[in-house]
């Protein structure tokens, strides 16, 4: 729905390294013990780690780049090969924290000034503090399964989107407005379920899903919402005081054909092998959060579908997408942070109950039929879910 590129392709939390040692989220569960803070100073020649030993549990490496080149800091397993956790792209003069929960054992620390070579290494021992550090042997497999399933889900949704768009475009082009209006919301559901993925293709999203208000002066408007406005033609009063001028048949066909071509493009890109390689646990977790953000900023306010008022279809679709993303990672979360999993389960249920109460026929009531209290209640449920959901990524990648 927006024209801005997302940071979907955030520099990956490199090789997802869910080894024996790294796990659990950001904060110590009991809150009683302060994190063990260890400072690291990285220069061209040295990697000065303030301690060579720490008790097991929550560890923070406070990494400062005191050199002139971009540096990285790694905590490696005893074999010196497997990465337990890392921070990368630390510019000169900049300090960044590496936070993890470490199990007892022997490790290796490494600074990599200039990001090349073996790095400057030293041994590091984690002693047994008795802190509960959950075993996590199956996690890597679980994450692999989650990414495979999520990629399959995205592909499936683009397939359904393509089929639905063909029907919609046909109705629009042949002037069957009634059928087009019927198809509009149910077809868009497949788009909204994978919206962050579509947005990660920076050129497709503005062509397909831009709202009129998102346009720059002189920029051509295309895509779903242009056709939405033509199908639900506004009065002059809702059109900035100007009489709405319907699209000509030729314009309609042209815009509809372009929408279909762009949808085919989206389909092709998500079915390319390169797409699957981009999807990791962080991408899935951040995608779930982004979907809830979309609900919180666009759908709950009725801004997304200002002509058709079918915002609740989009709302449900965003929640569907977030739920699928979470479900894929749920086993990982249960293993690492059962409280978070329980919280998320409850919040998803609460929100779904509220949405179900607004069902009508195969779909939903219009946004304009909601009372203020109902909107407020939905907004509160979205916030209640959005907050724990924002911890999903950290929970699965740390």
């Amino acid at each position: 729905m927006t024209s801005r590129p997302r940071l979907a392709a955030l520099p990956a939390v490199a090789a997802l390294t869910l080894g024996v040692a790294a796990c659990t989220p950001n904060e110590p569960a009991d809150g009683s013990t302060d994190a063990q803070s260890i400072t690291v100073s990285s220069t061209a020649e040295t990697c000065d780690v303030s301690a060579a030993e720490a008790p097991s549990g929550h560890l923070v490496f406070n990494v400062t780049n005191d050199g002139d080149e971009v540096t990285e800091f790694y905590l490696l397993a005893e074999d010196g090969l497997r990465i337990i956790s890392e921070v990368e792209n630390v510019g000169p003069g900049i300090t960044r924290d590496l936070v993890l929960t470490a199990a007892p054992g022997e490790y290796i620390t490494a600074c990599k000034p200039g990001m090349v070579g073996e790095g400057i290494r030293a041994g590091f021992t984690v002693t047994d503090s008795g802190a509960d550090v959950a075993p996590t042997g199956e996690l890597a497999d679980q994450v692999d399964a989650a990414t495979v399933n999520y990629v399959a889900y995205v592909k499936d949704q683009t397939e359904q989107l393509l089929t639905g768009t063909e029907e919609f475009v046909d109705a629009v082009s042949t002037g069957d407005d009634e059928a087009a209006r019927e198809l509009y919301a149910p077809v868009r559901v497949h788009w909204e379920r994978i919206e962050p993925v579509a947005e990660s293709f920076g050129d497709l999203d503005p062509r397909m899903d831009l709202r009129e208000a998102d346009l720059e002066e002189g920029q051509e408007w295309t895509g779903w919402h242009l056709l939405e406005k033509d199908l639900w033609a506004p009065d002059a009063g809702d059109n900035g005081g100007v009489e709405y001028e319907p699209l000509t048949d030729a314009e309609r066909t042209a815009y509809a054909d372009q929408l279909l071509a762009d949808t085919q493009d989206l389909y092709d890109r998500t079915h390319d092998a390169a797409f699957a390689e981009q999807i990791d646990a962080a991408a899935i977790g951040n995608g779930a959060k982004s979907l809830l953000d979309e609900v919180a900023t666009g759908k709950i306010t009725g801004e997304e579908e200002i002509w058709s008022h079918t915002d609740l279809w989009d709302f449900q679709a965003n929640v569907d997408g977030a739920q699928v993303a979470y479900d894929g990672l749920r086993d990982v979360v249960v293993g690492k942070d059962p409280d978070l999993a329980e919280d998320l389960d409850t919040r998803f249920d609460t929100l779904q109950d509220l949405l179900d109460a607004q069902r009508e026929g195969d779909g939903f009531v219009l946004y304009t039929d909601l009372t203020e209290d109902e909107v407020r209640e939905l907004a509160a449920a979205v916030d209640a879910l959005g907050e724990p959901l924002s911890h999903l990524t950290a929970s699965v990648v740390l």
Partner: protein
Amino acid sequence: MAADPETDAPPEQPRGLSRRALLGGFAGALGVGAVGFAGGRLTADTSVAAASATSDAYAFTGVHQAGIVTPAQDRLHFATFDVTTDSREDLVTLLREWTHAAARMTQGLDAGELGATSGPYDAPPDDTGEAIGLPASGLTITFGFGPSLFHDADGVDRFGLGDHRPTLLEELPHFPADMLEDARCGGDIAIQACANDPQVAVHAIRNLSRIAFGTASVRWSQLGYGRTSTTSTSQATPRNLFGFKDGTANVKAEETDAVDEFIWVDDDGSTPAWLAGGSYMIARRIRMTIETWDRAPLREQEAIVGRTKAEGAPLSGGDEFTEPDFTATGRDDVPLIDPSSHVALAHPDANDGARMLRRGYNYTDGSDGLGRLDAGLFFLAYVKDPSTQYVPMQNRLSRNDTMMEYLRHTGSGLWAVPPGVPDGSATGGTEGAFIGQGLFEA
């Protein structure tokens, strides 16, 4: 930690003379000369108007209006007015009265000469009184004229000023994703009141609004706090509501060449002479979707801004004032500073070297009906030429800035800020000098 603005604020101790003290002991001696009270302290050049050690008042008079390169105070009350009369004479009278009251209030005096607690017992006092006992608090009052003062929405030239409209003074274009609310846009005249005490800033706008009744009415207004920019190198860079330092690369008052190059309108015939020594003021009310921002990982927040949250250092390295290196790359040759980050797009390097003097404030107008903060940045900026120093940059930001995901622009306006009332001018009465005099006598 956030910088403590107090430590870098202009010297305020000992506090300036309070209104009560002035009224009681010195009013007679100062008399109408109140305008000259601090006038001698300031020379008529672009040097920084710093409050002196014995007063926290800034001079109202000068080549330029105060409140632009003046070290940014901590509080804002901004208001725009629609002129409700068609009488040019009434408008001039209002500007005379406003000028006189503004000159007085910036010196810590009551708006009117009788004061808040004197005058006929059967008449309302000519000052509203809530600033009694408060010092001048660094109050500055800055006036600007909007495009609609020259031609209203129907193109009517109500005051015979149309021929003198600077060509650069026109409504800002629609920027991508603008969600402007009519009730927070435009206005024939804008007044920016800044002070270090919110009650003093509000007192100023309240009394000016009162004087205007019948001639001009408030169109919209905005309170701001926690200045989000520094306009002087003596101030530490404050933080906006995203928790990041803001405006590090701002034009500072001490950069006198930059101020001349980027802020003050030249007297070279390219614009009407009445505006020489003035500037253009841009206001944008930018709501932040605080709740979703707070759920964004630190990694994403820093990537969006392009700076570290802790120090404000560019992600290419160094400290806050190190120039960002947009060519620096990290792993896999990915730029350390994302090309769609805020710093990359807003930096002068991306804008043909254009800079501006930002003077924005945080705002929080309670919550919306959905329990979310109605909060963000009230962006105020001064430029010599909005068509080159602001519009292209805002288009670029609105289109590409990854931060836009968390922003929505809800209010907007552009005003031409006339030069100051010259030092030594008498204000008040039917002959007094007034803001914008050059326009009306052009």
